[in-house]
């Protein structure tokens, strides 16, 4: 089996004739054969016009137009279903309690404790960080793995075997001329701007991650910033220069390390908490950089994982590999 991009595979699928839409239209030669005046053709035309009972004419009309009719009905039905669903959901929303009002059922003891006690219990002044990484840390662990499984799926779908890319050229003729065959156009303005912006976005990303426990932000948003920096750098300076510090190897190392550290920290936290042991984690000074106990390393792990995933998506769509 040849290893190439998904698109090329799809194209081959169509070319193999498994999609046989072409075979429903007549070639010019076949059309000409039908136009000549032979007994069979005369019979054929007589089927199409008059002399036949209504049922047969209806059948032939249906065979002719049935597919279009079905398509149109299908479209109308789908629009109808969507509009109905939207209508029903909007009606339901009008019944729901008003957002932010004091008697909204969501304002209950759960939210109250998150807001009032997160500083003493989780050591964070950012109650959201305390909620997603400590109170409901298990959900967030799952969420980080959703990113991981998505990145793996994109790798399965789009990764071109490295053996097909020798010295920057593609060996597979099906892929020649596609986007991944070309290095980015290293534009001067882009390069100058990137020189300024790439370090800034890395530093700002790190800042957001480190301050995730005391100000809005955290792993997901900081990681997105760093990922954007990586994408910008590879667009402006070309793949080779980015690969020098962030290639396939680096991606796997960073990603595995981050997710493993995250899972182990979380497992330790959950195990100790569930069994009622003291977990000996210093919560730090609320409001400072070192605060929130395990939340800081968790934020860092999530941040690097998110950055990796974002860059991985970009690189796979752009050049079929990291």
């Amino acid at each position: 089996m040849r290893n190439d991009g998904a698109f090329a595979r799809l194209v081959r699928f169509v070319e193999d004739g498994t999609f046989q839409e072409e075979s429903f239209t007549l070639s010019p030669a076949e059309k000409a054969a039908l136009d000549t005046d032979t007994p069979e053709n005369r019979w054929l035309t007589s089927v199409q016009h008059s002399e036949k009972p209504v049922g047969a004419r209806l059948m032939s009309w249906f065979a002719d137009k049935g597919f279009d009719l079905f398509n149109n009905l299908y479209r109308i039905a789908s629009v109808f279903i969507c509009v109905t669903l939207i209508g029903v959901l909007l009606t339901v929303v009008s019944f729901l309690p008003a957002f932010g009002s004091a008697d909204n059922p969501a304002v209950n003891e759960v939210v109250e404790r998150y807001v009032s006690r997160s500083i003493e219990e989780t050591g964070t002044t950012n109650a959201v960080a305390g909620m997603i990484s400590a109170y409901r840390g298990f959900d967030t662990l799952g969420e980080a793995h959703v990113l991981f499984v998505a990145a793996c799926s994109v790798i399965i779908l789009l990764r071109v075997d490295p053996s097909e890319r020798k010295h920057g050229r593609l060996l597979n003729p099906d892929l020649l001329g596609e986007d991944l065959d070309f290095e980015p156009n290293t534009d001067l303005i882009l390069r100058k701007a990137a020189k300024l912006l790439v370090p800034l976005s890395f530093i700002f990303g790190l800042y957001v991650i480190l301050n995730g426990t005391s100000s809005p932000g955290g792993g997901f948003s900081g990681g997105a910033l760093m990922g954007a920096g990586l994408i910008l750098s590879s667009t402006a300076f070309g793949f080779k220069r980015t690969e020098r510090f962030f290639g396939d190897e680096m991606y796997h190392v960073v990603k595995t390390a981050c997710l493993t550290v995250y899972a182990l920290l979380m497992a330790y936290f959950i195990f100790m908490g569930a069994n009622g042991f003291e977990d000996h984690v210093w919560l730090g000074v609320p409001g400072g950089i070192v605060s929130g106990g395990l939340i800081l390393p968790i934020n860092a792990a999530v941040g690097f994982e998110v950055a990796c995933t974002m860059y991985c998506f970009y690189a796979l769509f752009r050049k079929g590999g990291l």
Partner: protein
Amino acid sequence: MELVQNFPFLTIVFSLTCGVFCAVLKARTAKRLCLCWLTLTTVMSLAVLVYTMRTNGYYVYRMGKWNAPWGNEIRVGILEALMASVFSGVMLLSLLGGMHHIFADCEPEKANLYFTMCSLLMSSLFALIYTNDLFTAYVFVEINTIASCALVMLKSSARTLVATTRYLIMSLLGSGLFLLGIVTLYGITGELLMESIAEKVREIFASGAYSLPLTVIIGLFSVGLAVKSALFPFHSWLPDAHGNATASSSAILSGLVLKGYIIVLIKIFYRVFGLDVIVAKQVSQFLFLFGVCAMIFGSVGAIRERDLKRMLAYSSVAQVGYIYVGIGLHSRLGMVAACVQIIAHAITKPMLFIAAGGFIDVSGGHKSMSALTGAGRRDPLGGVAFTVGALSMIGIPFFAGFVTKLHLTQGALESGAATMTVALAAIAVSTLLNALYYVPVIFNIFSGRESGEYKGLRVRWRADYAFSLVCFIALNIGFGSFSRIVVGVIRRGLELFGM
């Protein structure tokens, strides 16, 4: 707290980590790691089952320092532990049985990702079984969705890509509806934990407020999870996805993934809304009707199919219908039947798919019925396994499928006259239809009129394939013959489940 009580949490979290490691290992090493871990999870789940049976109760495991409405928690009972043991055992056997197909069908560079996806899928199935929190359920439904699509996609062919696209779109639609349901339910109750929601829903239902939102929420949950578990009108994605994937993927997707969503639906029905609300809102009638339709139309679809794997996929549609009929009877016996069917189908369908994979091997890679003539002679063990599976599906005594039909009939006999008539008729017709497409296949695979091309072909001896099939056969006949033990466990589990 005893050590064994930690096992459910360990199986969930370390399945995730196992998946992460598999992504960077070489395919052969990843395979070993994944198989070892699955063996371990099976043993751990069995230990949890024994523990819960001995203490005859369930326990709530706090995921962290804080108690439930603030933190996360999982709930472990007899039924949950039983499902977890069965699922992880079936996952292990399915992987073993189709191992050589995995390495043949996946691109060599990406074969390790197959084991990543399996580990993540296993983790999400564990989480769906044990979860006590709707949002945790949603997070792991997401992992489940993406990983199962990837399992179809890993066999690199254009057909699987098209099938995956359809599967992904339908499955995401289901997730979206499920999420809308959670959001709206949170809007009117302000809770995510199942017990707390149940309390609030009881109050709301008694006061008569929010009648329309409640109906719509139940509808969103039912339709969302029905799309994902391929209940009758939403099953169109299934034959393509399950019919074109590699043997293990088909086995895992048919045997386990569909059931994961159904378990979530059962939890939502019985632990969130409660029987009163469900009966008052008449959802179970709809599920019952669609289940009956699925039993009939799934079988009709299978009869028309000439491609063995697609036929088995249509048969899954029919079998999922049995589960929904069981749920739709909204009685204890119906639920017992649904749980029995979840287990019976989980141990039968993977065996059929893996045997079908063996047949395809000895028939030059063809899947059509005509090419498979005599395949059972060329692959005798596969032939025996397929026969056992087919007889079980038809519902012959001493095989797993019979237990389902027995309990479903009992459940139907206890319900109202109309329901009883429809259910009994559906079971009878469906049994007949099952026989109509399985018996010809059995005759076909053992037929002496093999086409000359493959006549001399003999299956290569593979220890993993043989081990998996022998285990499946033993499980099937064991479950069929000694069903009383398992059904007793299910009954006790359902009692703790709030039934």
